[in-house]
């Protein structure tokens, strides 16, 4: 462990260009995918939580199933679809950051939908009663709901960011862990582990955890401020 920690610090201090490239690719992939998933997932989650319509239960069950989708299966699916022989081959997206983001959005959005739905289904009835009592219209009612949701939107985002940064199965399949192009922290750790470079693997893991800690501190502080 000691040698891993030393290695991690050596790596950071030396500003190894390959490490910097891996870090920037990691940041690009997981920030973009988690934000996209948030934009897609929050409205759907709120609607599913607040409204009652036929088929809602079915959608909820489907969504819960998708939350449990193994990343490697998602990766395999996109690998097949965007492969040189797959139906979307002309886009040339395989082994690019774009497809890694897409695969992660598919993995993460259900989590955000699930979190938002649970929260809204809990708060919406009481809030609706208040809103109706005050004579608010439907738009105003939703705005009120959004306000109430702010804290849980942050929680949902933290969860989805964590999933994005920790995920390896899907990005390894569709990214191919190509050096200088699609290699992210988790796939680099996998690569070094396969090579038997366990020390280097743990060193990268420590860097990843430290970064994750910093991001989480910033977001948590923001969450505290905003929801006050």
């Amino acid at each position, binding site marked *: 462990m*000691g*040698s891993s*920690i*030393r*290695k*991690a*610090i*050596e790596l950071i201090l030396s500003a190894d260009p390959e490490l910097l490239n891996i870090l920037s690719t990691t940041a690009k992939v997981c920030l973009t995918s988690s934000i996209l998933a948030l934009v897609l997932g929050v409205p759907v989650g709120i609607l599913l939580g607040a409204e009652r319509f036929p088929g809602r239960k079915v959608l909820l069950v489907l969504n819960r199933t998708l939350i449990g989708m193994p990343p490697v299966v998602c990766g395999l699916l996109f*690998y*097949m679809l965007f*492969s*040189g*022989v*797959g*139906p979307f*081959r*002309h886009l*040339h997206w*395989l*082994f690019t950051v774009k497809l890694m983001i897409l695969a992660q959005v598919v993995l993460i959005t259900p989590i955000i939908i699930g979190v938002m739905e649970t929260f809204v289904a809990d708060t919406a009835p009481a809030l609706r009663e208040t809103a109706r009592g005050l004579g608010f219209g439907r738009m105003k009612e939703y705005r009120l709901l959004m306000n109430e949701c702010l804290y849980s939107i942050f929680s949902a985002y933290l969860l989805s960011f964590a999933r994005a940064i920790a995920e390896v199965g899907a990005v390894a399949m569709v990214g*191919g*862990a*190509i*050096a200088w*192009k699609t290699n992210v922290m988790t796939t680099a750790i996998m690569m070094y*582990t*396969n*090579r*038997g*470079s*366990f*020390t*280097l693997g743990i060193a990268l893991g*420590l860097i990843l955890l*430290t970064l994750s*800690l*910093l991001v989480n*501190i910033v977001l*948590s*502080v923001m969450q*505290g401020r905003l929801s006050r």
Partner: protein
Amino acid sequence: MKKIVSLLLAMIMIFALAACGQSAAPAPAATEAPAAVEEPAAESAPVEEAAPAEEPAPETDALVVDTCILKEADDAMINNYSLLAVNPDAPFVDADGNAVADVELNTVGAAALINWLLSEEGQNLAANYGFEEYGEYLFYLKDGRPVSTAEIPEATEETKHIRLSTTTSVNDSGLLGYLLPIFEEKYGYEVEVYSAGTGKSIANAKMGNADLILVHSKKQEEAFIADGFSYVIDGMETERLNWMYNYFVLCGPSADPAGVKDAADVKAAFKAIADGKFTFISRGDGSGTHTKELSLWPEELGITAEAESFKDYTDWYVSANTGMGACLVMAEEMGAYILTDKATFLTFVANDGVMG
């Protein structure tokens, strides 16, 4: 208040991490120890004899590698590396088995890379690779190898990206990291290296995701050609361009309980391991090394890539299903026998078995 406390805590953690690292005073020698650990000629030289000459190694987790080369330079152990250009008119099929006609491949780029690797410059660079770092050449040029004198075109916007699907050993030994930047610098191409076991690399190419492959399993290469996935590029005589080789080596604990050192040849050595049921680590991942290992067992054991075939041998035959380096770490820890390419083994020993 709570926030400040948690921020402080986080800062303390980060500083603690930093302090740990500094106080241990970076000792680069641990990772860059010279590789002259085992004598190339004397097959039996146990590694420890040379190792104590190194610095006393202050860390507790520095290992001295016990695993050593027991059998090498046998004709059955030659490890041939070949280049194959992927045929744009190959009978590609999609996941449902329907033919796909318009798979887009960068044939110009693939030919350029092949022609450069087979040019005098590329061949010399490959042949000299590794001597400085490991005190031994890692790859040798084959007699009667294909040589290219073709003009290599500069990259254009359409031909710039070359997708090379390759085996882990040429990537992990650092050969590609050494050769490709020179090629890229000179002609303006960008080579994207997809590195996996030979089986997976070939599967990736069959899905239309590679312009050329660099692999080391004759059997699988011939099947690839027979299925029409490769073609003869201009100026070459065959699809399979076998230009470089090195050796597989049979490694094991220096005590050598199976006595493979004294075996007449490598097949006899494998028989001795099987007869004595001494632990053997198999890659088990369809790689070139795995394919070679399968061909060396006595036939009556019937060991194949199928899990069914070795279910009776699980007390000594370990199918690890992972990369070469990770398997070497396993073999070292279990005192097991293992078949490995020599380049990866030299890297392993040079790093005191930490592969770091």
